[in-house]
């Protein structure tokens, strides 16, 4: 009796406790308990999900909110969308934004976080993480306005800096040229957001047991291989999460483009968000704006489904 195999004992004790003192685990789910979810569900239903459904319905109309004129036009808005060069340009710009953000804010930030964590002094590590985070705290509007001035052709910091380096021939109106406008805006976003990613990756890296690195070091494995063989695989969950946040964020870009270029010059920096705003609130073409909204929704939905499918395959739960 007293010599029950050690491996059995916890299981027996566990089930006995489950039967006796875990009323909650054995209790049947009760609809009364939904009281806990009602406030959140109600607010989301009214301000998020209902408008989302309405948006789909509106996308089949031609209408003006302000004058009230409204008529059913079937798929006309979508047909127009498919051949609208500005919409396609916006789509391309969002894709560029996503690609640049993945390189900088996922892989660049992970690498940088590993470099920061390799610093021996805890004080220094904390100082670096905090300094890199500051731009994330100062808001996109402020950062956007700041870079608007930095990019100014005559009085801006960037061209003056290039001139000092002897690269004066590259100086230009960064936001005023069709070839550079969207990249200038995207560069500002990386400056503004990378510290936040570094912070999150630092947190993930700190959870990796030190023993793994010590064992690797004893085996003569250098820091570069340690990064690829230990750090990267073990923060994969965080990398996946950052990937979806970053990409769907890139397809929701609005504020910085609005503040810095309003989509110009000549629509060269237009993104889906600003083009939707323009269609609705500048040209009063609300049905068309709703159709753009549906496109944005489908893109983010597809990205989320893709992410879910990838993480399912890896059997990661969140």
């Amino acid at each position, binding site marked *: 009796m007293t010599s029950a195999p050690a491996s059995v004992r916890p299981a027996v004790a566990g089930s006995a406790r489950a039967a006796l*003192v875990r009323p909650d685990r054995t209790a049947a789910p009760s609809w009364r*308990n939904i009281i*806990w979810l009602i406030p959140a569900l109600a607010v989301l239903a009214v301000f998020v999900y209902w408008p989302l459904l309405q948006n789909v319905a509106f996308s089949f109309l031609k209408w003006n909110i302000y004058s009230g004129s409204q008529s059913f036009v079937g798929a006309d808005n979508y047909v127009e969308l498919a051949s609208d060069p500005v919409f396609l340009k916006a789509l391309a710009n969002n894709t560029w934004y996503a690609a640049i953000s993945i390189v900088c804010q996922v892989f660049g930030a992970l690498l940088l976080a590993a470099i920061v964590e390799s610093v021996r002094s805890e004080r220094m590590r904390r100082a670096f993480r905090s300094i890199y985070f500051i731009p994330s705290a100062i808001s996109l509007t402020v950062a956007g306005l700041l870079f608007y001035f930095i990019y100014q052709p005559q009085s801006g910091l960037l061209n003056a800096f290039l001139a000092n380096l002897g690269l004066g021939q590259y100086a230009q109106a960064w936001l005023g040229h069709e070839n550079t406008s969207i990249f200038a805006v995207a560069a500002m976003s990386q400056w503004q957001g990378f510290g936040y990613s570094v912070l999150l990756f630092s947190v993930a890296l700190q959870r990796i047991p030190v023993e793994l690195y010590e064992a690797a070091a004893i085996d003569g494995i250098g820091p570069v291989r340690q990064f690829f063989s230990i750090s990267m695989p073990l923060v994969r969950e965080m990398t996946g999460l950052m990937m979806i946040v970053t990409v769907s964020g890139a397809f929701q870009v609005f504020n910085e483009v609005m503040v810095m270029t309003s989509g110009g010059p000549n629509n060269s920096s237009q993104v889906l968000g600003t083009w939707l*705003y323009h269609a609705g609130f500048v040209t009063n073409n609300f049905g068309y704006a709703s159709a753009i909204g549906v496109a944005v*929704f489908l893109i983010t939905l597809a990205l989320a489904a893709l992410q879910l499918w990838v993480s399912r395959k890896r059997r990661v739960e969140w």
Partner: protein
Amino acid sequence: MVTLSNAGRWLRAALVWTILAALVIAVLYPLAWMISNGFKTNAELFGNPFALPASWGWGNFAAAWQQGVGSFVLTSVSLTVLATVLTEAISAWAAFGLTRVRIPLNRGFTVLILAGLMLAPTVALVPLVKMFQSLGLYNTFLGLLALYTAFRIPFTVFLMRAYMLDLPREVDEAAAIDGASKTVTFWRIILPMSRPIIITTVVLNVLTNWNEYLFAMVFTSGTGLQTLPVGLADLMSKNGTQYPLVFAGMVMAALPMVILFFFCQRYFVRGLAGGVGK
């Protein structure tokens, strides 16, 4: 051999410190430039961009405050504080329900609440304007408050739920044995234990609400209800030639959040460590 590997190590250290220092400069220099521009005159601003202001007076800051920054700050502070409190209350209540109470279709409700995470606010923009106009919420403080609260709930529930899943079951059971109801368990036990994640989400929500631009721009018209980001952007287009004022306004908009971050930093990081990547 020994000297060679020493040289390699030295080189590596040099590279690491160069990268770290270069990024520190890339972050701090533009910020220092922004602050110094707040003290310049217009002529100085359009002169040599590297030059420091001739005198460090507060004139631009006072003028910017007079020109509306003061009222933008008031609107932003009240909106940020109220929306954050509401979001935290509703989200904590829901996260507790999702993790520690038996609710039918729990998985379905979890998906329904968290799905809001990936929805762009622009997608609901047109119907929301229509709805707010017919409800009389357009251009009202209450309307903005509702939007700010609603759109922060999914993310806040996401973090709180991950955190509460990690708290041991035994505490609920101990409370149940002592005769505590679920509500008492929520208030007296789970909420105090969740302090790190509450601080983290408060910091994130305050940051987001303080910086929000789309809703504040679309759902307000004219003056009176402008938040800091919208007010600043307006100040910029109205003061076509008084850029030092705009810089002063930018500094005043940025400073509170930087201070808040440094103040809460330790708790903020600890909460993230417990909640994200779960």
